[in-house]
């Protein structure tokens, strides 16, 4: 049976403190003057409930920026695949980022599946946090249908006036809430409030671009030769910000790090960006994606075209991070709008 709980805001401090005692608790916190980041918290005062998407998405807990995947000993010619992991409660994940994690789950479950990712994922309990309104003008979650959660969480919290309504989606979530006395079953009043808010959301969140979602795939499929890539080529600095902040970018490099004894060492998986010049270059020097325009096109195709073929799903969550972070002001909404114009 579907289960809803409530937590009154008066109890929020206590709630966070208790959660942090059960296992490592990670939540959005303020970073710098205007930005946010997921980080470890121990008290409610550290948590920013009202935040725009964090600099890096929560993918950093699922595939860390630097991750040891192999340890070796040269003299013994011994190679071991290794995972370093910990149990984490990931609190306050917006619905766009829930969708991002779902995309990564698909990729790393592809055969041969990446057990490093899969085991780490199992050790993370996800508490989502619904967005009742837009974070800012960069988001396209309405178009991508990620303003509401489509699964992908153990618990989902919705902020309503003096309380949170919590949807329990998994047994793990139920078990965790069972440990917290301040969380009560939801009453009819709370459910009415929730429904009222959801109805209001239907008006607030509308497709941000004038295109039907299902038309995005054909739009991109037919746009390999579009002129927009030439103008983006001129704009792009090739800094890699757009891919590093993307919740569904998962490309990586593997680096060898040997100790100074030249015997023990490890292989480290590191985030890599298809926007950097050497990404598709082979050691002979041939570069298969030498143009910045071509590299940007590749990034877009990996969101709107290729994954749709493979997983029947877009890999753009609508979080808006790529546009928000781009110094050259390459804007996802504008790119799509230009493509629509070009097609006409």
């Amino acid at each position, binding site marked *: 049976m579907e289960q809803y709980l409530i937590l009154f805001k008066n109890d929020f401090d206590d709630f966070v403190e208790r959660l942090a005692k059960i296992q490592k608790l990670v939540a959005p916190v303020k970073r710098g003057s205007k930005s946010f*980041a997921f980080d470890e918290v121990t008290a409610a005062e550290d948590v920013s409930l009202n935040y725009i998407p*964090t600099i890096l998405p929560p993918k950093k807990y699922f595939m860390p920026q630097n991750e040891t995947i192999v340890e070796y000993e040269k003299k013994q010619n011994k190679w071991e695949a290794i995972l370093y992991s910990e149990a984490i409660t990931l609190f306050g994940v917006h619905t766009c980022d829930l969708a991002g994690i779902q995309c990564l789950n698909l990729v790393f479950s592809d055969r041969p599946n990446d057990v490093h990712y899969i085991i780490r994922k199992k050790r993370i309990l996800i508490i989502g946090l619904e967005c009742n309104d837009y974070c800012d003008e960069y988001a396209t979650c309405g178009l991508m249908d990620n303003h509401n959660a489509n699964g992908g969480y153990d618990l989902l919290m919705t902020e309503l006036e003096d309380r949170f309504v919590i949807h329990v989606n998994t047994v793990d979530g139920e078990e965790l809430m069972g440990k917290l006395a301040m969380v009560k079953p939801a009453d009819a009043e709370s459910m009415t409030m929730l429904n009222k808010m959801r109805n209001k959301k239907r008006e607030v969140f509308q497709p941000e671009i004038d295109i039907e979602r299902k038309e995005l795939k054909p739009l991109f499929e037919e746009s390999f030769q579009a002129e927009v890539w030439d103008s983006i080529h001129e704009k792009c600095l090739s800094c*890699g*910000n757009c891919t*590093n902040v993307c919740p569904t970018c998962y490309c990586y490099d593997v680096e060898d790090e040997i100790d*100074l004894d*030249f015997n023990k060492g490890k292989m480290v998986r590191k985030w890599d960006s298809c926007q950097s010049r050497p990404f598709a270059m082979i050691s002979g020097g041939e570069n298969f994606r030498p143009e910045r325009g071509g590299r940007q096109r590749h990034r877009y195709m990996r969101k709107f075209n290729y994954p749709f073929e493979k997983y029947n799903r877009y890999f753009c969550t609508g979080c808006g991070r790529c546009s928000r972070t781009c110094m050259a002001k390459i804007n996802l909404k504008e790119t799509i709008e230009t493509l629509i114009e070009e097609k006409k």
Partner: protein
Amino acid sequence: MKRKTVAFFDFTCCEGCQLQVANFGEELLDILAAIDVVMFREVMSEKSDEYDVAIIEGSITTPHDVERIKEIRETATTVIALGSCASIGGINGMKNSFKLEDVQSYVYGEDGKNYFETIPTMAVHQVVDVDYFVHGCPIYPPEFVKILKYALQGLPYTVKDEAVCVECKLNENECMYEKGLTCLGPITKAGCNSWCINYGNICYGCRGMVKETTKNASIDVIKKYDIPMDWIMGKFDMYNKATESEEKK
């Protein structure tokens, strides 16, 4: 593996990069177990004319420097340029924005200028072949160790040609441009783990530029953030004047 003999040399520089090595702390013991240091003026009094690896700090700024670096190159099997002065010319490159006579009289005075010969600042590779580049002002110690390992194994090492922004994002720093500051991260070669920005400073471009020139894009960004062009050029010239016109290493 036979331990290689290593000698440190300084040219025009502040010797701060060698100080970084001397200051390694515990890891220095691991390094000293892997190499045999035969000359390192900052930490020992012994000297040697024989060495496998020459680690060069400083730029080439006098005719005497040119002769000396050529001799070192002939002796050493491996030459490592240590720090910006050696790897890209660095701060000393600012001299190249002025006439040599003016520089001479400014530094040594009208009476002294004739006693000291000077030439435009050059990075080490502009005079002799360099096998490894450890960029930075000062060097980033973990990168030095990493490159040293490649050098000791006799394997080529290429500094990854991507911007400081890449590492900065992975460290999840708030962008300096968001704070209203100008930062050379977008055009500066990574490898320092965005060291300065992690500690709240901007990137000064001390590691040299990324290979791909994005002139139009850079001008766009400068305009958008309303940054005076001469100001950004001043920042750029601070480290990159000596090597601005060459194909980037």
